[in-house]
């Protein structure tokens, strides 16, 4: 199967080159056979990539260590689920993921537009083929230069008996899905980018390229949203520092295209309706695509220090060349088409929906620029001063929070303002109730005596305003619908939102973002964090909570020890308030032994390998009680060394090739580990414990969930039929009016 996978990948490279060449010939000559052939080539490319992925996954499932990729990122003891997801933990695997998702997205859009875009589609096909060829070329280059580590089917001359296993930090359900979500987000932005380039080349710069690709932009946004949320969730429950967002370069790299992509999704509506912002829209999608490539570059190049990065690699330079090519090529193309990009109309008034969208766009792009500056500041400072210095979370918070408040406020104002122009009196009337509600909520928070930071208070004000604004919009819309067509309130509501999924899906997303930011504001403003050092039986007071270290525990499930090469030492903590126990938390520290460990010191190898935290947490609507712990095992050094010496002495007497003797040896290792665990439970050393009270964090995840539902609602198919029905009605009406003209 490995041979089939490698062959499919080779054929995929040839096919993508052909797709690009055929599309270019078709675009230049207008010969439809070439265009059709290039489209078919993309379908074939998708088939070949899927064959290749299946072959690689089969190798992971078989633990086929003749493949370097499998040997370096999996092991016989890796749980099956993680074997399947280990592919994208590697560089070659993530390149394969990029190319595969691109082939699926491109095939889908080329199928959907097979009867349309006769001028733009061939150029868009050529652009997508060029990008696919780049990633496939990177992979195949790894076959010629094995040190590049990019060819997924690279074989080893002498396969090891056991693999290195998956990086422990990646053994988390959120982390299994997070990378493909982010990559899918990055890759789906390729589709609107390619069609924008096609539109620029052919000067077909009306809104048709937007109409055909806007769904892909929304799908990309949805994937990126889920990817970012899963990354935050993983960070919160696995990294042991107590937060969900650290302004880490790799987190920022995914946030930047999300911000510009959000701006793009809003601004294209103005071009569709009013024929405005054409230059802005093509520039935004180029920026979003470049930032998506930059995200891949940051993860893979190791150029910036990050908890998520995968170390230095050789794909950084080629990716940088691709990014530079896209920036230079797109800029030249946009400048050469400025005459065709001239707007058809001007803004009628500052008091209009399109002005609100423009304001939202400027803030989103401003936010992206701040994040960009903060992320690349270490490189910039090194360039100008020779010394690398980075910007920490407070710097990011200082500049991003006011902009986030402004954005949230606009998310509430936008739905209340009509398109084109409205009078100030109308706006005041629409804003009255949401403003009163926001003032009431803010006043209530101040009255109950909560000591808010001013910016957090402003965020609550904006969130209350937006939620009320959308609620008012839904209520008034439902009432209007009911007065037009009768029926009950629920049926009028259903009719209202199903007739314009895009609009109301968007409003649901606004509510989700407001709820999410309430979680962010509350959890960052009122978080209590204390570092404690406790032994069993000791307790400490943190605000109104008393934290008691009840007892130590070990997680020495022998199956888990052998399967995941993992030991876990933990602490059972009871949390009390006003004499009542409110939570029982069991944080633990997990220790992993890799194959690179010293086989003569099997116990020490656990504590010299990678370690991760499994936090203890209770989640409620009002607050999370969050703990992470790390036992101070220095007093166990002598015991560990003694166990290893016993093991080594026994191992010296056991024949290497006798399976029965080796089983006895493994049993001895198990006994020694159990003895160590028993000692830990009996005489537990002090543990460093971080105890956090994080208010309202649950609302962050709820907000993400609402946003995802809103985006899914906006994406749900079926709008075409309704649009036709509406069109028929208006066409008949206009026809009557036309006859009277």
């Amino acid at each position, binding site marked *: 199967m490995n041979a089939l996978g490698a062959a499919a990948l*080779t054929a995929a490279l040839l096919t993508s080159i052909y797709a690009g060449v055929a599309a270019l010939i078709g675009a230049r000559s207008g010969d439809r056979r070439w265009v059709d052939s290039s489209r*078919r080539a993309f379908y074939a490319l998708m088939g070949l990539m899927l064959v290749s992925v299946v072959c690689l996954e089969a190798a992971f499932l078989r633990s086929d260590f003749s493949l370097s990729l499998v040997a370096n990122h999996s092991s016989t003891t890796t749980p099956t689920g993680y074997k399947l997801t280990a592919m994208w933990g590697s560089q070659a695997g993530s390149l394969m993921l990029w190319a595969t998702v691109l082939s699926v997205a491109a095939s889908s859009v080329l199928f959907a537009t097979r009867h*349309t875009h006769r001028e733009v589609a061939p150029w868009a096909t050529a652009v997508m083929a060029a990008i696919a060829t780049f990633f496939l070329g990177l992979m195949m280059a790894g076959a010629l230069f094995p040190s590049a580590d990019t060819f997924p089917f690279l074989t080893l001359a002498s396969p090891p008996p056991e693999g290195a296993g998956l990086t422990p930090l990646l053994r988390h359900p959120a982390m299994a899905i997070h990378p493909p979500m982010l990559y899918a987000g990055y890759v789906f932005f390729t589709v609107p980018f390619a069609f924008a380039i096609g539109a620029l080349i052919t000067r*077909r710069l009306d809104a*048709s390229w937007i109409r055909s690709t806007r769904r892909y932009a929304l799908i990309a946004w949805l994937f990126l949203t889920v990817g970012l949320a899963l990354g935050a969730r993983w960070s919160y429950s696995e990294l042991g520092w107590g937060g969900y967002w650290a302004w880490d370069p790799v987190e920022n790299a995914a946030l930047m295209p999300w911000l510009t992509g959000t701006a793009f999704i809003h601004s294209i509506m103005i071009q569709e309706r009013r024929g405005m912002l054409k230059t802005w829209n093509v520039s935004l999608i180029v920026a979003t695509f470049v930032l998506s490539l930059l995200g891949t570059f940051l993860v893979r190049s190791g150029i910036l220090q990050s908890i998520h990065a995968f170390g230095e690699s050789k794909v950084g330079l080629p990716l940088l060349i691709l990014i530079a090519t896209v920036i230079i090529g797109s800029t030249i193309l946009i400048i050469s088409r400025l005459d065709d990009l001239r707007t058809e109309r001007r803004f009628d008034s500052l008091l209009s929906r399109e002005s609100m969208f423009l304001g939202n766009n400027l803030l989103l792009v401003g936010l992206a620029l701040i994040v960009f500056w903060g992320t690349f500041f270490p490189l910039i400072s090194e360039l100008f001063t020779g010394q690398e210095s980075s910007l920490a979370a407070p710097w990011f918070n200082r500049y991003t929070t006011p902009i986030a408040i402004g954005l949230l406020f606009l998310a509430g104002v936008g739905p209340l303002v*009509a398109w084109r122009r409205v009078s100030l009196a109308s706006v005041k009337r629409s804003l009255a109730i949401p403003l009163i509600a926001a003032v009431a909520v803010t006043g209530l928070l101040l009255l109950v005596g909560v000591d808010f930071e001013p910016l957090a208070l402003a965020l609550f004000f904006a969130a209350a305003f937006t939620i009320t604004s959308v609620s008012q919009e839904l209520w008034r*819309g439902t009432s209007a619908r009911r007065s037009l067509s009768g029926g009950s309130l629920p049926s009028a509501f259903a009719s209202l939102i199903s007739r314009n999924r895009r609009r109301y899906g968007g409003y649901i997303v606004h509510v989700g973002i407001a709820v999410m930011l309430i979680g962010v504001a509350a959890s960052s403003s009122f978080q209590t964090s204390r570092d404690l050092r406790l032994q069993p039986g000791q307790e400490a007071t943190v605000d109104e909570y008393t934290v008691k270290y009840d007892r130590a525990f070990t997680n020495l499930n022998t199956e888990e020890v052998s399967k995941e090469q993992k030991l876990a030492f933990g602490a059972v903590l009871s949390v009390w308030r006003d004499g009542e126990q409110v939570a029982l938390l069991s944080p633990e520290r997990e220790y992993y032994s890799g194959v690179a460990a010293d086989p003569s010191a099997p116990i020490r190898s656990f504590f010299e390998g990678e370690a991760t935290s499994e936090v203890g947490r209770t989640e409620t609507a009002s607050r999370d009680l969050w703990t992470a712990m790390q036992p101070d095992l220095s007093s166990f050094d002598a015991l560990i060394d003694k166990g290893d010496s016993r093991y080594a002495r026994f191992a010296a007497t056991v024949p290497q090739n006798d399976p029965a003797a080796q089983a006895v040896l493994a049993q001895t290792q198990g006994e020694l580990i159990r003895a160590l665990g028993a000692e830990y439970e009996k005489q537990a050393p002090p543990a460093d414990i971080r105890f956090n009270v994080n208010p309202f964090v649950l609302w962050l995840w709820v907000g993400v969930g609402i946003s995802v539902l809103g985006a899914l609602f906006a994406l749900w198919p079926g709008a075409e039929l309704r649009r036709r029905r509406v069109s028929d009605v208006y066409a008949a009406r*206009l026809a009557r009016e036309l006859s009277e003209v």
Partner: protein
Amino acid sequence: MVVLLVIVLVALVAAFVLAPFRSAEGVDVVYTEDPVLAELEARKQAKYREIRDTELDHAQGKLTEPEFKRQEAELKAEAIDLLKRIDAASPAAEGSRAPGAPAD
């Protein structure tokens, strides 16, 4: 082995991809739209949506009666202009027009 498999796969792909060249009828790309007409049609749809949204905005109290009347008149005028342009650009109109007559 790999080389042989590559040859087989490339041959299969070639058979699928080169189908449009095998016969004059082999092209399955049938463009159902004229780009200019398609754009005008899309603009018409967008205009209808604008009219519908303006009516809803009015019903929701976002627009006063005079604002609504003015916008509605503007939108309908723009829609009628689009309908005329579509008529002028459609093949039926081209056929019925006298030779040499102006398109609009």
